[in-house]
């Protein structure tokens, strides 16, 4: 009896001693990344793509960088900013993460910004696309895109390519308004005219009345931005109302024609012209390799969200290589500024002044390739900065 208690105590002290001896060394060897994504809810496809892409990159490049082991802690915020803030706090305070990353929607990225500043932890934005985000903390770096990048380009392109009158249909929330304003600014500056402007409520079930308004205003094209998930509904009802046959084109930033959803839309999507940072059909060796590896691992086509995640984790890896594994927030941010590399989407870099992404924007048209729908690129605007900031 006594013996057994003593032996237990011995074991216990032994275990404690072992933990004390190994724990600090272990903590030094691990770099933790808190990945906050919407894995459930309406934005879940964003979260899944980014999670997949991060896993893929780590499979391809190993989970050690500069002698440190990389550990990713995935948390689901369901795109609710209150959750994002709480999870970011838990990750920083309890798990002592060295990076927070992900952020499916703008409000989520903004909710975490003050925490990044306070804790001096780099916040890598892999999805959200409103211009203001990187201005909210000196520790935010973005690898996705801004709506200004794609909307200004499609505005310029439309004005130069014989589209005179445009009706706009955009969702009534921050990214929708960004898309609308930047498009309008460049399109009207190029001599175009907006004949109808409709803002659709975010939770909108039926597009019929709005589409009828579009049709009656007889434009050359309809500029559309709705959250990725609603694009399919929009295109189906657009075809149902016969807008495709009346010669009214659909143009917009590429979110509506996400590779993830494109095939579900059916032939109604054919001929749609959008401006965007990425297409699964981008003709480069790096992209072909990426698409093949992604398809093999997850059985589906990567979209632009996956590329944002793939480049985001790569940015973290490269920054750690530069600092020699040092996880000081300021050193990491300094290492990221001005970094350049060849992404599946083409050449990209991090603007040293704004910490935002600089990338090519492509004009693409939906075409059928091997029985599947793809956004086929036909014009390139090189090294586009976010005009939401350069204006100031």
């Amino acid at each position: 009896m006594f013996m057994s208690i003593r032996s237990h105590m011995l074991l216990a002290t032994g275990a404690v001693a072992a933990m004390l001896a190994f724990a600090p060394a272990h903590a030094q060897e691990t770099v933790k990344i808190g990945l906050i994504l919407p894995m459930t809810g309406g934005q879940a496809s964003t979260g899944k793509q980014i999670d997949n892409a991060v896993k893929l990159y780590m499979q391809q490049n190993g989970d050690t960088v500069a002698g440190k082991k990389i550990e990713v802690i995935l948390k689901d915020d369901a795109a609710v900013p209150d959750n994002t803030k709480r999870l970011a706090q838990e990750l920083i305070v309890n798990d002592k993460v060295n990076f927070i990353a992900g952020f499916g929607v703008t409000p989520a990225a903004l909710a975490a910004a003050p925490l990044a500043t306070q804790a001096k932890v780099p916040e890598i934005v892999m999805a959200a696309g409103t211009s203001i985000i990187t201005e909210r903390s000196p520790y935010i770096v973005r690898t996705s895109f801004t709506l200004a990048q794609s909307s200004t380009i499609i505005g310029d392109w439309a004005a130069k390519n014989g589209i005179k009158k445009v009706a706009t249909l955009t969702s009534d929330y921050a990214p929708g308004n960004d898309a609308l304003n930047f498009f309008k600014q460049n399109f009207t500056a190029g001599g175009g005219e907006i004949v109808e402007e409709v803002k659709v409520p975010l939770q909108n079930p039926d597009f019929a009345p709005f589409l009828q308004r579009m049709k009656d205003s007889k434009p050359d094209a309809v500029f559309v931005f709705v959250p990725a998930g609603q694009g399919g509904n929009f295109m189906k009802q657009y075809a149902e109302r016969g807008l495709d046959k009346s010669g009214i084109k659909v143009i917009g930033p590429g979110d509506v024609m996400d590779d993830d959803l494109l095939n579900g839309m059916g032939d109604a999507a054919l001929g749609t012209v959008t401006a965007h940072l990425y297409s699964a059909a981008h003709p480069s060796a790096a992209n072909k390799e990426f698409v093949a590896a992604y398809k093999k691992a997850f059985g589906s086509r990567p979209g632009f969200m996956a590329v944002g995640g793939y480049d985001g984790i790569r940015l973290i890896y490269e920054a750690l290589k530069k600092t020699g594994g040092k996880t000081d927030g300021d050193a990491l941010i300094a290492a990221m500024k001005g970094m350049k590399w060849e992404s599946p989407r083409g050449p990209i870099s991090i603007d040293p002044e704004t910490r935002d992404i600089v990338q090519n924007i492509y004009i693409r048209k939906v075409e059928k390739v091997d029985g599947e729908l793809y956004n086929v690129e036909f014009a390139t605007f090189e090294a586009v900065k976010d005009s939401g900031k350069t204006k100031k």
Partner: protein
Amino acid sequence: MTTLFTILFDGVAYGMLLFVLACGLAVTLGLMNFVNLAHGAFAMTGGYICAVLVNNSGWPFFTALPLAFVSAAAIGVLLERTLYRHLYTRSHLDQVLFTIGLTFMSVAAVDYIMGSSRIFIKLPAALEGQFDFFGVGIGRYRLMIIVICGLLTVALQLILAKTRFGSRLRAAVDDPRAASGLGINVPQVFAFTFAFGCGLAGLGGALSAEILGLDPYFPLKFMIYFLIVVTVGGSSSITGPFLASLLLGIGDVAGKYYVPKMGPFVIYTIMIVILIWRPNGLFGRTATR
């Protein structure tokens, strides 16, 4: 002028769809005095069953539609026998808590099984597009909705008013004790009615996928619409919800067309005005029990 008719047509189709989706709720709420907030979950079930049959198993759309009805009704009767019947005598608060819990469980379950992306049902080519009728654009799919829902409404009204089952149901609702004294099997009548309501919801869910979109959040997103229909229409008959659905459907579509800046507020404004004018709904009788 032709635009006015197109808007009217779209509004009627939208209203009819709302009616099929919501009338099961009107029956359970009004006739059985049971608050079933999980009604939308049955609609979603019907929608997903139809989508799986058509998209994955290659069934024709019109064969899958009745099956959406039957399977939602079957699930309804199963849940009624095992869970719901224990709550008939409980307070409305208990019923609300129980059914909202069921709704959340259904959302999580469908999210897990089917994924959270929006799903479309592959329609036969004959139902796609619009045709021109004296200058008025008529959507084929919406026309089909109006035909199916119109026939259903007439059939429902006939069943409730003219058949033996209808009079049994009304008797069971008005005074369950006297009704069972007369030899009416009240629990059986209720179970059947509940299942039928769920079946209608399932059919509505299958029909609505094309227009409203189908994802795991369907029951939560559209709960508010079902409740507005029942509140505005009153829940003691099906004529009330029917007229309310039409009014709201046309009001919503016309409002969004003519005053798009008002957005979804038109539907709420209609509701508030009607409720100030008739607090028990369009055809509500003042509570007698």
